[in-house]
């Protein structure tokens, strides 16, 4: 079953991601009010947990055995993990093979969700709390800042550093990012349960409370001891995903889902066959392809141009275009991607999602 709320939220995450990446990679502009870096990936990971639960329910309804479901899940996870490495090598160039981008994280998270699906929600909640608590400790133990040079993750190609990157210090390490898909799965269990008569109330209240807690942490931070500011309350940062950042983005994902589910899925007057739902559905179905494609279309020309000018491939990274032009290109890409994927749907050509299903299912 498709839920339009999930399609709309995933479309929002994709739009944000495309805009942020174009502006950052082509113009070197970091987060701003109109370019709010840091909300796309959490929402995307949260929705991945929700979608996994919906997929799981459909597989169980089809009568697929537990073993078949496990095999498909693990194959999909490994496919995404391998795709993440291929993406890092081909798009971010080989020196960034182990930067632990979002694709490798999603692949690993999917394998973990295969274990988590058998656990009661209360255990998942305890795991999330533990991850949330030990993440700052693990970062302190691993000396997180030493892996980040000029705002970007760099590690030596030693097993210990690579494993630390995967678990704690990389761009999207398991600690604390695994919280998002786990909470997504727990939310889907609770919201889509047929016994739940008020499915949106609790996620909305919890989401709002988490955002309030985050704001409180941000306000109180300056009044805390230096040690707390250094290791626990680091302020609003995506890398590392600080306490404040995790609380706020998780709360935002929960609240946004609760509201869209109430206003869209549970609203009988909402046109489910309308234009907006169709557009969101197209972007949502092809989100993985769009993620890869938008990097390819703006980074490869950048690398080629650098080499053609006799410079290093990454020479023009962050300084190739003025900001306005980067924004315009991001919008052009979104429109072009929509028509491209509509054409692919019409002609039966599948993107990366279709390859994944062909290989793994």
């Amino acid at each position, binding site marked *: 079953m498709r839920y339009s709320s999930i399609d709309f939220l995933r479309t929002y995450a994709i739009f944000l991601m495309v805009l942020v990446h174009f502006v950052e990679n082509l113009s070197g502009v970091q987060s701003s009010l109109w370019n709010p870096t840091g909300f796309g990936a959490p929402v995307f990971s949260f929705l991945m947990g929700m979608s996994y639960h919906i997929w799981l329910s459909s597989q169980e309804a089809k009568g697929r055995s537990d073993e078949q479901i496990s095999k498909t899940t693990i194959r999909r996870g490994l496919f995404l993990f391998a795709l993440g490495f291929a993406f890092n090598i081909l798009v971010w160039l080989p020196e960034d093979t182990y930067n632990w981008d979002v694709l490798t994280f999603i692949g690993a998270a999917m394998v973990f969700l295969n274990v988590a699906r058998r656990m009661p929600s209360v255990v998942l909640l305890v795991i999330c709390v533990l991850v949330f608590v*030990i993440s700052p400790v693990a970062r302190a*133990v691993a*000396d997180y800042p030493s892996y980040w040079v000029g705002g970007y993750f760099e590690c030596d190609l030693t097993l*210990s550093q690579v494993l*630390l990157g995967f678990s704690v210090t990389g761009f999207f390490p398991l600690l604390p990012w695994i919280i998002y898909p786990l909470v997504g799965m727990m939310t889907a269990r609770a919201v889509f349960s047929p016994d739940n008569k008020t499915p949106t109330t609790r996620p909305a209240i919890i989401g709002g409370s988490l955002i309030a807690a985050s704001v409180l942490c941000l306000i109180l931070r300056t009044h805390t001891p230096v040690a707390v500011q250094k290791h626990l309350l680091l302020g609003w940062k995506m890398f590392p995903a600080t306490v404040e950042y995790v609380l706020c983005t998780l709360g935002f994902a929960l609240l946004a889902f609760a509201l869209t589910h109430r206003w869209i899925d549970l609203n009988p007057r909402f046109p489910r066959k309308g234009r907006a739902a169709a557009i969101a559905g197209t972007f949502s179905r092809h989100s993985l392809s769009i993620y890869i494609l938008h990097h390819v279309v703006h980074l490869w020309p950048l690398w080629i141009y650098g080499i053609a000018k006799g410079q290093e491939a990454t020479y023009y990274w962050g300084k190739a275009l003025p900001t306005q032009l980067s924004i315009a290109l991001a919008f052009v890409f979104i429109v072009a991607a929509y028509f491209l994927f509509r054409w692919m749907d019409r002609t039966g050509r599948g993107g990366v999602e279709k390859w994944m299903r062909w290989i793994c299912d």
Partner: protein
Amino acid sequence: MTIANEQLPGALPDGAETEDIPLGNTSLALLMVPCPDRDDAALLERARAWVDGDSDSAQKCLLISLQGAQILWSPGRAAVLAPAERLPAVQPALIEFSQHEAALRDIEREVEAGWPDLEADSPLAFDFQEKALGRREELARRFQRVIGLRARLARLVPQVHRPLIHPPTLASQVSERLRERTRLIDRLEFIGGQIEVFEHVYEMCSQRASDYMHSRKGHTLEMIIIAVLCAQIILQIVELLSKLTTE
């Protein structure tokens, strides 16, 4: 309660009476006709047509002739054509039998309606899983319903299995004959067997669900302990890896 005249079977002899007697969830429309002439075929036919009512062919009425009394009976309607002095003897027996039959019919109908649920629930009698947790309340309701049916049947059985009266009276004979013709004793036995199947399945479901919930609580606690231990191990591994990095 008196039945409307338009529902009556045409012209009736003087003294004919109708009564609507409540029987739990249903009622019995009873027509009592004082009839000195036993061979009044036309009256009998009219009474039969009335007792049959608009029921389908499978539910046509029973005719019993005893000691000059002719008794027509179908579920919901009955007629007695007998000499006036015999009518008071037949009426209580007919009402009592109809009460028992209606109670049994109710139980039969509920059991019949429960078969699809039973088939859907029977896998849970073997294996209870996480995804069935939401059905626990439903299973409990069905189990209670089955127990209720068994209790109703248990109350009905001694009333139906009464010892025969000796010497036999018209009332006891009417009652006995109707029990035979409607196979009341056999039906009691069959429905008892069917309820036993329901009891068996739902008892097992309840046992499985209870066992599952009990072990689930234990497993949940174990999983939480394992998660805490894993968190500690992860921190130790991170510490170890960071030491390896700095060495």
